[in-house]
C-alpha cells in the first residue's frame, strides 16, 4: 500500500464517521448518508490505485453485476418492503466476507506463511460472515413472506442445544485449520456449519422481532469486515467494519429496548411469536388474548398518526392525569397530529366530570368533542387513546342485547384504526362487566397508573 492509498483511506473513514454522526439526527441524516457514500467512493478509488492491482476485467464484471442487481432493487422496492431489502443487502455483505475468507484460505494454503493473527481474523470472518449471510437470507424470506412468518422451531431446549453444537463444531474445525491442517474440506465445513447455524437461529424468530435481528446481523457483518481488514492489513476496512460493529451493537440494544424485548430472549427464539401473529393475523379475539404494549411504542404510533382521539374516563380522574394528558396532547399537536378529546356524557362519576378536569388542565374548548360529533370520526382516526375509560367504550352496549348496558350510547372507539388503552389492570369499570374492546386485535393495553403512563408516553414523544 502506498502512502497515497493510506492517506485516502484515512480520508475515507473520516467521511464515514462524519456521515454517521449526521445520520443520528433527522435534520442531517440525508446529507450524512451521502457523505458516507462519498467516503466509500474514495476508499474504492484508493484501493484501485494500489500498485500491482490487476484482473481489471474481473473487477469490472463483479462491479457491474452488483450494480445491475443492487441499483434497481434499491430503487424499485416498495417502502413497506424496505426492511427485507436491508436484510438482503446485509446478507450479501456477509456473503462477500465469507467468500473472501475462503479464497484467502486457498491462496495462503491454510495461512502457511502468515502470522497467527491473520488465520484467527480470517477464520473469524468466515464464520461470522457465513452466519450473517444465511441468517439474513432467512430474515429476508420471512419478511418477504416467502418463508412463513410464524416461528419455526424445534422446541426451545433442543433448538438451543443444536445451535450450540453447530457453533462448537465450526469453531473446532477453525481451530484445526489454525493448527496448520490444510484441507479445503475443513474451510467448507466451517462455512457450512456456520451457515446452518445462521439458518437455525433466525428461523424461530417471529416477524415482529425481525428488525432487531437484522440489526444484530448487521453488527456481525461489520465485525467480520473489520476482521477481514485486520487479515488484509487494510485500515479502511478495520475502521469502517469496527464502527459498524460497535454502533450496530448499540443500535440493536436501543431497538430491542424500544420494543420491550431483550436480545437474548429474541435470539433464544419463539418469544416474539405471539405478538407477531396477532399483529399479522388481524382477527382472533375468540381466544381472548390481550396484547400489551410499551410507552415508546404508543408514542411512535401517535407521533406518526394524522388524527388521535383521546377518550378520557373515570381512571383519568382517579389518576389526576389531566395535566399530563394535556401536555401530551400539545406535544402531539406540535408534531402536526390532530388531537381531539371525546367526552362521553357519563364518563366519570358525575355529570361533567371530564369537563372539570380538562378545563383545569386548560384543554382548549374546541378540542372537546361530544359523543355525537366524534362518533363519526373514529373510522378515520389512526389512534384512539383510551385513558381510564371502560364502560363508555364497551361495544357490548351496541352488540350484546344481554348486556346490562345494552342500549346505552357509547363512543365507537372500536372503529378506530388502532386503539391504545391505559388502565391498571383488567378489572371492570362501574358497571362491573367485561369489555370486549380489550380483546380486539387492534387494541393494545398499556398497563399502569394513567398519569405515569401518559408521562412516559410524553417523554418518549419528546425523544422522537
Amino acid at each position: 500500500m502506498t502512502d497515497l492509498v493510506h492517506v485516502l483511506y484515512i480520508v475515507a473513514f473520516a467521511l464515514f464517521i462524519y456521515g454517521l454522526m449526521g445520520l443520528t439526527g433527522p435534520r442531517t441524516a440525508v446529507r450524512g448518508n451521502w457523505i458516507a457514500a462519498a467516503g466509500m467512493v474514495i476508499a474504492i478509488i484508493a484501493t484501485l490505485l494500489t500498485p500491482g492491482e490487476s484482473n481489471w476485467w474481473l473487477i469490472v464484471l463483479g462491479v457491474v453485476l452488483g450494480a445491475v442487481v443492487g441499483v434497481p432493487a434499491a430503487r424499485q422496492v416498495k417502502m413497506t418492503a424496505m426492511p427485507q431489502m436491508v436484510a438482503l443487502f446485509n446478507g450479501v455483505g456477509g456473503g462477500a466476507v465469507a467468500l473472501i475468507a475462503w479464497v484467502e484460505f486457498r491462496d495462503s494454503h491454510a495461512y502457511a506463511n502468515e502470522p497467527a493473527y491473520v488465520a484467527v481474523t480470517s477464520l473469524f470472518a468466515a464464520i461470522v460472515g457465513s452466519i450473517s449471510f444465511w441468517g439474513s437470507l432467512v430474515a429476508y424470506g420471512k419478511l418477504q413472506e416467502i418463508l412463513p412468518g410464524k416461528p419455526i422451531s424445534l422446541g426451545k431446549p433442543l433448538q438451543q442445544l443444536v445451535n450450540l453444537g453447530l457453533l462448537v463444531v465450526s469453531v473446532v474445525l477453525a481451530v484445526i485449520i489454525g493448527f496448520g491442517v490444510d484441507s479445503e474440506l475443513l474451510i467448507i465445513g466451517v462455512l457450512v456449519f456456520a451457515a446452518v447455524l445462521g439458518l437455525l437461529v433466525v428461523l424461530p424468530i417471529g416477524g415482529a422481532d425481525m428488525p432487531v435481528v437484522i440489526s444484530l446481523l448487521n453488527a456481525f457483518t461489520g465485525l467480520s469486515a473489520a476482521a477481514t481488514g485486520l487479515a488484509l492489513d487494510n485500515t479502511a476496512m478495520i475502521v469502517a467494519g469496527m464502527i459498524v460493529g460497535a454502533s450496530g451493537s448499540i443500535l440493536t440494544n436501543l431497538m430491542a429496548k424500544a420494543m420491550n424485548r431483550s436480545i437474548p430472549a429474541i435470539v433464544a427464539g419463539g418469544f416474539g411469536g405471539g405478538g407477531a401473529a396477532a399483529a399479522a393475523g388481524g382477527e382472533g379475539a375468540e381466544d381472548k388474548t390481550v396484547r400489551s404494549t410499551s410507552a415508546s411504542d404508543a408514542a411512535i404510533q401517535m407521533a406518526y398518526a394524522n388524527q388521535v382521539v383521546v377518550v378520557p374516563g373515570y381512571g383519568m380522574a382517579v389518576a389526576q392525569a389531566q395535566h399530563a394528558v394535556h401536555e401530551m396532547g400539545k406535544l402531539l399537536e406540535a408534531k402536526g397530529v390532530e388531537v381531539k378529546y371525546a367526552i362521553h356524557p357519563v364518563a366519570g362519576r358525575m355529570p361533567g366530570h371530564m369537563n372539570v378536569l380538562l378545563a383545569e388542565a386548560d384543554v382548549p374548548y374546541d378540542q372537546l368533542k361530544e359523543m355525537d360529533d366524534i362518533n363519526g370520526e373514529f373510522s378515520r382516526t389512526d389512534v384512539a387513546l383510551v385513558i381510564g375509560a371502560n364502560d363508555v367504550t364497551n361495544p357490548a352496549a351496541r352488540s350484546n342485547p344481554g348486556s346490562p348496558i345494552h342500549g346505552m350510547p357509547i363512543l365507537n372507539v372500536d372503529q378506530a384504526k388502532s386503539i391504545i388503552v391505559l388502565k391498571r389492570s383488567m378489572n371492570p369499570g362501574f358497571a362491573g362487566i367485561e369489555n370486549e374492546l380489550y380483546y380486539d386485535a387492534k387494541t393494545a393495553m398499556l398497563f399502569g397508573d394513567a398519569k405515569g403512563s401518559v408521562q412516559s408516553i410524553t417523554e418518549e414523544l419528546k425523544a422522537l
Partner: protein
Amino acid sequence: MLCRVTSDTGVVVGVPRETAAGERRVALVPKVVERLRAKGLAVVVEEGAGLGALIPDREYEQVGATIGDPWAADVLVKVNPPTEEEVGRLREGATLIGFLAPLTSPETRDRLRGAKVTGFAMESVPRISRAQSMDALSSQANVAGYKAVLLAAEQSTRFFPMLTTAAGTVKPATVLVLGVGVAGLQALATAKRLGARTTGYDVRPEVSEQVRSLGAQWLDLGIEAAGEGGYARELTEEERAQQQQKLTEAISTFDVVITTALVPGRPAPKLVVAQAVEHMRPGSVVVDLAGETGGNCELTEPGEVVVKHDVTIASPLNLPATMPEHASELYSRNVQSLLELMLTEDGKVEPDFTDEVLAKSCVTRDRES
C-alpha cells in the same frame, strides 16, 4: 287562543306553566320541542310557560308548538307534582310525566289513580347506566350542587380563593361537603374551581375514590352505610351519635359546610348539630340542600337564610329553579328520553312495562284495578 288541540298524526304533548312558588323551570324547552315535533308529536305549550326561564312564547312557536291549553293533551309533561286542581284538569287515560314525589307525597299518587291517569315519576327512574339520560334526579342535583357553591360564596363574608395581595394574604376557604352524591360531587368540583380547599364526606365507602378524583380530600370517620341501588341506608342510633360527635369536631375548622345527605324516603340525617355551628368561626356559612326533608343541620330553617351564632345558614329549597334555562334544558332532555322509550314505531304512546326503567318509574296505570 286557548283551545283544544289534537294532532291528526297522533299524540299531543302538553306543557303547562308551573305554578309552584318560586318555580322558574319549564318541562320542555324549545330545542326539545323541535325534536319531538320531528318525531311526529304535536306540542301544546301554555302561554307564558317559559317566562320564568326567560324563554319567550315566540321561541316555542318558532319550532312548531302551539300556544294553548296543555291540560287536554295525551301526554302532559310537568316539573313539579300536580296540585289537586291540576289533577282535575287532566284527561282520563292521559299520561303524566314529571316529578311526582311518590315516596314523600302518596296523596298525589292516589289522586292520579283516581283520575285514571298513567303517571311516570322521574325520581323513580332506576340509577343504572343505561337510564342515565332519563335521570332527572342527577341532572337537577348537578345544578343544585353547582348553585349551592355559588350561594355559599355569595353568602360568605370571605373569599374562596387564596389571594396574595399588597394588602395582605387571604387564605383559601376550606369547604366541607357532607354527603357526596351527584350534588355533592358537583359542589366539590365547583368549590375547587373557585380556589377553595375541598373535603368530602359520605357514608358510602366507594365515594372516597370519587372525592379524590376531584382533587378533594376525604374525611374518614370510619362509618360505613351503603344501601341499595347506589343509595345510602339510614344509620343506626349508635352510628348516628358517633357520626355527629366526630363531625362536630371536624366541622369547626371549615369556613363553609355544604350538606346534601339524603336517604330515599326518609327524613334527612342530622349531620350538623347546633353545637357544631356554635363552634364554627363567626362569618362561616352552612348551605343545607336537604331542607326539603328537614335539613342536615339542626338549625336549618328550610327555605330561609338565617344567621345563628354569627354563622350564616342557608337552606334553599329549589336550587335548580334558580338556574331555569339550563335546568329546564337538562330536565326536558330527561323527559324526552323517557318519552321516546314509551313511543312505538308508529308514534303511539304504549309503554312496554317489561322494561325495567318504565316499570320502575311508573307509579299509577290507568288500566290498574
